[in-house]
């Protein structure tokens, strides 16, 4: 695999074979072709080099060259990344694609430059929805008082609290047994994670409210970027952009496989919910996080995108 003269290092917290990992590998292959074997990419998967927050710093310091991360850990670093991380900001996956593939996405990628990073492309991470061990959730009343595990993130906590449920931050590794024993009632995630974590075995009610459609981002270290010739920089940008359709296909396949497996296990899936009250309940969350005119403008532009 180490065919290129210079192998650039890329970090990913997902295991080998995961769509994001495979997409960056694919990008490396394209880069190798475009640079006649001068540059290639090696993916350090499974959080070998650290969790996302740490590897972001390492990328900024120029220790690693590429990093595939979720937008979430950037929320407290780069203001603009808060907006696509807001609950119910995107109406659907298609809406998200339209926004992030267009000028708004370009603007957000540019915001990385001020933080020693070069934003290259957005990848898919599906839509996050609630699952629980108790009952099918069809309305906000059903959510009242239930305990949901969330990531250590302000937006997640505020969102779950605004929905009337009890946000419970907890490390991912403890979620399975915590749902099983009743420490918590459920959690929220996308199809592939719901399946691969085995959480569907203990939380057989999945409500597709799609509260968060947060894309992932591929960034390069500004330090590594500056070392490349203008020609190689262009090759990196092209390879990253060209990896996006491939990634989306891998993601769709993975999602479909997970969905099939979960459905086969007999999980109760709720699709017919009226999201309007959920969206209305998010008013205080938006008020808290959309603070500047720049951010308000971004929200309006996203909502105006057809």
């Amino acid at each position, binding site marked *: 695999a180490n065919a290129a003269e210079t192998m650039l290092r890329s970090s990913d917290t997902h295991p080998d074979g995961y769509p994001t990992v495979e997409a960056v590998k694919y990008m490396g292959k394209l880069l190798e072709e475009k640079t006649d074997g001068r540059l290639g990419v090696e993916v350090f998967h499974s959080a070998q*080099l650290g969790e996302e927050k740490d590897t972001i710093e390492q990328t900024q310091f*120029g220790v690693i060259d590429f990093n595939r991360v979720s937008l979430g850990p950037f929320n407290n670093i780069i203001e603009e990344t808060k907006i696509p991380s807001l609950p119910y900001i995107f109406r659907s996956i298609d809406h998200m694609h339209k926004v992030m593939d267009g000028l708004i996405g370009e603007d957000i990628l540019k915001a990385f430059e001020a933080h020693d990073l070069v934003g290259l492309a957005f990848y898919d991470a599906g839509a996050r929805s609630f699952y629980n061990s108790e009952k099918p959730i069809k309305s906000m009343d059903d959510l009242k008082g239930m305990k949901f595990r969330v990531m250590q993130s302000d937006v997640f906590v505020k969102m779950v609290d605004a929905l009337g449920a009890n946000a419970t931050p907890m490390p991912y*590794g*403890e979620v399975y047994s915590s749902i099983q024993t009743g420490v918590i009632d459920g959690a929220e995630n996308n199809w592939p994670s719901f399946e691969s974590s085995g959480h569907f075995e203990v939380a057989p009610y999945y409500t597709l409210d799609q509260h968060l459609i947060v894309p992932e981002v591929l960034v390069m270290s500004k330090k590594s970027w500056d070392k490349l010739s203008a020609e190689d920089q262009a090759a990196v940008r092209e390879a990253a952009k060209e990896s996006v359709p491939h990634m989306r296909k891998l993601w769709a396949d993975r999602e479909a496989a997970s969905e099939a497996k979960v459905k086969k296990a007999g999980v109760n899936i709720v699709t017919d919910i009226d999201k309007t009250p959920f969206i209305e309940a998010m008013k205080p969350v938006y008020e808290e996080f959309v603070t500047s005119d720049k951010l308000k403008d971004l929200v309006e532009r996203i909502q105006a995108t057809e």
Partner: protein
Amino acid sequence: MEYWILFGTFVFLLLIGTPIAFCLGVSSFATIAYLGLPPVVVFQRLNSGVSIFALMAIPFFIFAGNLMVRGDIARRLVALAGAAVGHFRGGLGQVNILASVLFGGISGSAAADASAIGGLMVPQMKERGYDADYAVNITVVSSIIALMLPPSHNLIIYSIAGGGRISIADLFTAGIIPGLVLALSLMVAAWLVARKRGYPLEPFPGMRAVGTLLLSATPGLVLVAIIFGGVRSGVFTASESSCIAVVYAMFAIFFLYRTMDFEQFRLAVSDAVRTTAMVLMVIGCAAAFGWLLAFLRIPTQLVEFMRDLSDSPIVILLLINVLLLILGSFMDMSPLIVITTPIFLPVAMEFNVDPVQFGIILVLNLGIGLCTPPVGTVLFVGCAVGKMPVWDVVRTIWPFYIAGIFTLMLVTYIPALSLWLPSLFH
């Protein structure tokens, strides 16, 4: 060249007596400087390596253990064990092992077990005509049981080192049968040695005496029930259970037994801080060392090397075990778990070994390493409480090593020993 700097500096510093934490930290620092990368990464890894919620179980369990020793809970557990099995051949040796089973259900630290139980049992055994080396041998090796029975913070470290995706509850449950098998093997070894040396028998004190002692040890036993029951019934998570152990130990000591004054409490706290800092500083520095191993692609290369060596899972597992036993005789347990898990877990999984079973193999294997020279924390603790030179202890310890390695082989090649019990909860 970078390999030589990393391992060379490490071994050199180790030999000149630098604390292991700084051997790991400084060798990483030197290597990254040689590579021309910003050394700030070493300190970021050090800081992140100790800023993990699940690690909190370590200070809590150590703290709870200290409270129990100073608050007399540990002694009552030993007294109960003495009454229950003292009338078997090599009686007090069996007591020592059973006490480790009981203590192991509360503590996750072999060193704490060796100091708590050894400190009480070794003088008693010597007084009743047992040889000091026999007493220390049993104390040392049976303390591995504490690592196997829940709670075990080393299994938590393993779960984190394995990417945080291995269920801690499963690991805890999986350790129970192997821990009991180890206890059984050690009891057989203790019995054989006792018969050969002609040690005396204790009279059975009668059910009544056992009952009284049971009553007196009940609050200690309740702690075991609270930890295990609390995790299993959903009151708290596995990492929170360690905190509840502290809260309960304080409650029992201050309100039920009333065996502790403020000065004793202060000493228990500062001792817990010392031990925790000692252990977690090693873990933090090992995180930096481990980052460099990954960055230099050493795990991947080792995986490829081992894959070329043999296709047989039996041979590969044997190789991993031998390698771990060698590493374990030089290094302490927690850094080795952090360093070797990312290297060996992918290999083992490649050969269809369940990550839960591999965790038990790893902890048992490295636990044996704690009892072996040249670097063996538990061995040193045992020698200190028995007031014995290391060499005198090691000369006669082999029957117990054999029992340990025998158990290790059973656990390695019979997956059901570890996996059957957790499967009941799924």
